[in-house]
C-alpha cells in the first residue's frame, strides 16, 4: 500500500516528505523501523491529523506526520 510521510521540525533532517510503498498491515512502529530516524528521538505520530500510538495499523492512503519533542531553551 502507499502512504505519505510528512516529517516536521528536525525529523526533516532524517526523512524527507515523500510517498512510500509499504507492506499492508504495517504498524507505526514498523514504519519507524523502516526509516532511518535516530532511536534517541522520542517520536509523536499523527495519522490523517489524529495522534496515534506505535501499535496503530496503517492503511492505504494514510498521511503520516512524524515529529519529535526535542526542543530548545
Amino acid at each position: 500500500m502507499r502512504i505519505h510521510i510528512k516529517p516536521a521540525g528536525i525529523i526533516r533532517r532524517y526523512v524527507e516528505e515523500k510517498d512510500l510503498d509499504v507492506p499492508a498491515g504495517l504498524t507505526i512502529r514498523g514504519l519507524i523501523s523502516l526509516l532511518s530516524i535516530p532511536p534517541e528521538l522520542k517520536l509523536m505520530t499523527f495519522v490523517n491529523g489524529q495522534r496515534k500510538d506505535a501499535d496503530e495499523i496503517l492503511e492505504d492512503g494514510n498521511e503520516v506526520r512524524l515529529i519529535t519533542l526535542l526542543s530548545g531553551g
Partner: protein
Amino acid sequence: MYGNTGKIIVVDLTAGKIEVESLPETDYLSYIGGSGLAARLFWERGNIQADPLSAEAMLIFMNGPFAGLKLSGASRSSVAGRSPLTGNWGDSSCGGYFAPELRYAGFDGIILTGKAERPSLLVIEDSTIRIESAEAYWGKGIESVNRDLKKKFGKTWRNLIIGPAGENQVKYAMILNEAHHAFGRAGFGAVMGSKNLKAIVVKASSKAMNLADTEGFEALRQELNPRIKEALASDVMRANGTAANLEGGVYSGDVPIKNFTSNFWQEMAENLTGSVLTEKYLTHGGACAYCAISCKRNVAVPEGPFAIPDGPGPEYETIVSLGSLIGSMDLAAVCKAGRVCNDLGLDTISTGATIAWAMEAFEKGDISTADTDGIPLVWGDMETVIDVLIPAIAAKIGKLGSLLAEGSAAAARQIGKGSSDYTAHSKGLEVPAHDPRGGGHGLALAYAVSPRGACHVAFPMLFMEMGACFYPEIGFEYELEPKTDLNKAETAVIAVALGSLENSACFCQFADREVTIPEWVDLFNTVAGYGWDIEAMMLAGKRVFFLKRLINYLYGRTAADDALTPRMLEPARDGEPEGIEINFDGMKEAFYRLMNMDPVKGIPVKSALIACGMAEEAERVWEEG
C-alpha cells in the same frame, strides 16, 4: 581550595570601597556555587527585606566550580538577589565569556551593595580592582558601549553591560555579556541600573587553574567533550539553533500562540522554525567559551522594514516571545525586535509576554487607547512593537511605557477588570515559550514550585518530558507521557534537586544532557575536591532548592503562591492538547508530600531541613513553641 578560588570581591558602591574576601570551603560544599552559593550569601549577609532597587539591596554575581575549564557548557555564571520584577528571590544565568575570565582573574564572584554617586564601571584586572566613571557611556545602548569598552580596554577584556532599560530601572531589564549572552530574567539589569553601575569589565593575564585531580579531570574532559560535540541534539542546534524543532513543537502544542490562547498555527510553524532562520538570515553560528555545541545565532536581514546589519540573532525563546506569542509569524521582524531588545537591555521573554497580555487586554477592551497614549495594540503589528512599544518600555515613555515597564503581573493588577486572569506567570515571572499543556504537564508543576517564578531551566522537567533524560542512579527511569500527571510529582522531586545542582554548578543544560550522574560526581571531585558521592551531591542540590524556598518564605511566599494564573490552567482551545485538563492540584499535593514540605507554609518541615543539614536555617523560619 581547588577549582573554585575561594575569593570574592565585595564592593560598597556608596563608599567606593572594594575588598577581597575568602569564603569558607564549607559554603561551597554545602551550596555548590552559582545561584546556590549566592543564596547562601544572601541569606547570611544580605539585607533581605530591602527594596530591590534601593541602595541597601545586595546584588551577587557568582561562578560555579567549573568556570574556566575547557569543557563544553561550563562557561556559565549566575546573578542573584531580590528580583525587582517579582519582589522575591531571583536568579538568572548567563553563558558566554565572563565566567571563565573572572575565574582566571582569581575570583569566584562579586557582591555589590550601595549606590555609586555617578554612573560607574567596575574594572577587574587580575587582583587590581577599581571603580571608574562610566558617564561617557550612560544613556547609550549595549551594542555601542560594548564596542567602546573593547576599544578602550582591549578586545579580550570581557564585559557585563546594561542598556537604557536597566538605567531606567525597567522591571525586566537584563544584563549582556559581549553584547550577546544574557542574564535575561528577573530584572537584574534594573538592579545594576539602580546602583549606577553601567558595566563590569574583567581581564586576567593567565589562565592557570588549580584542580584537585588534574589528570582525573583531563580524562573526564577527553571523554565528555567529544560526546557533547557529537550528540544528536548538539548537531541539530549547531545547524539550526535552539529553534531547530519549533515546527515539531507546534504540532505537540508546546509553542504558545497569542498569549497562550492557541496551541496550533501551521503557517507560523513553517515560517519561524529554525531551518528557515538558517536559510534566510543566518550569517554564522556562535558559541560560548570552549563550547563545541555552538548553538548561538548571528543574523542579518538585508532589506525591508526590518532590515538589520550582521549581529546577534534570536534564540528559541525570543523567536516565540516576539513572534507567535504576540501574533506574528514574521521572522525578520523577530530578528529586529530581538536586536532592539538586546541593545536597550530588555528581557525578550518578559517583553513579549507583557506585550502579549496587553494585546489581549486591548482586544477585549480592558485597556483602550486612553490607556495607551492613543496607540492601538494589535496582534502581529510588529512595526508598532519595534518602533513604539519596545523603546517606550525601555524609557518608560508615556502611560503606555510606564504601564508595560512594570511587567504583565503588575500591569494587570493596575488595570484590574479581571485582566490578571489572562496573564501567564507564576510568582510574577512570566511563563517562557513552553506551554505545559503541550510541552508536558510536569512543567506546570515545575513552573509553580520554582523559586524565581515560572522557569523552564530551573529544573530539567522539560527535557524529562521530552524523553531526553535517563538517570537510573537517582531513580529517574520513567518514560513520561507529556499530557498526563502520571509520575510527574515523583519526577519533580528528582528534577528540583538535579536542576538546582545544574544551576549552581552553572553548567549548560544542552551540554550536561550528556553527563551521567557518576560523571557529575567525578567532575565535582576531580575539579573542586568536594569529596562527594551521589547521595551527598544530590543532597546539596536539594539543599539549594530548600534555601531558595526559605528566602521566599521570608518574603511572605507560601504554598498559595506555588500557583499558575487561570489562563495557564484552562484546557487548550485547539491543537494537540485540546480540551485536556491539567491535574495541577493533584501533582502539587503529591510533590509537597514527597518533599516533606508543609502544605500551607510551602517550606520543608523542620525535620526535613535538619536532615539536609539546615538546622540553623530551620531556626529562622520555624519558631519554637
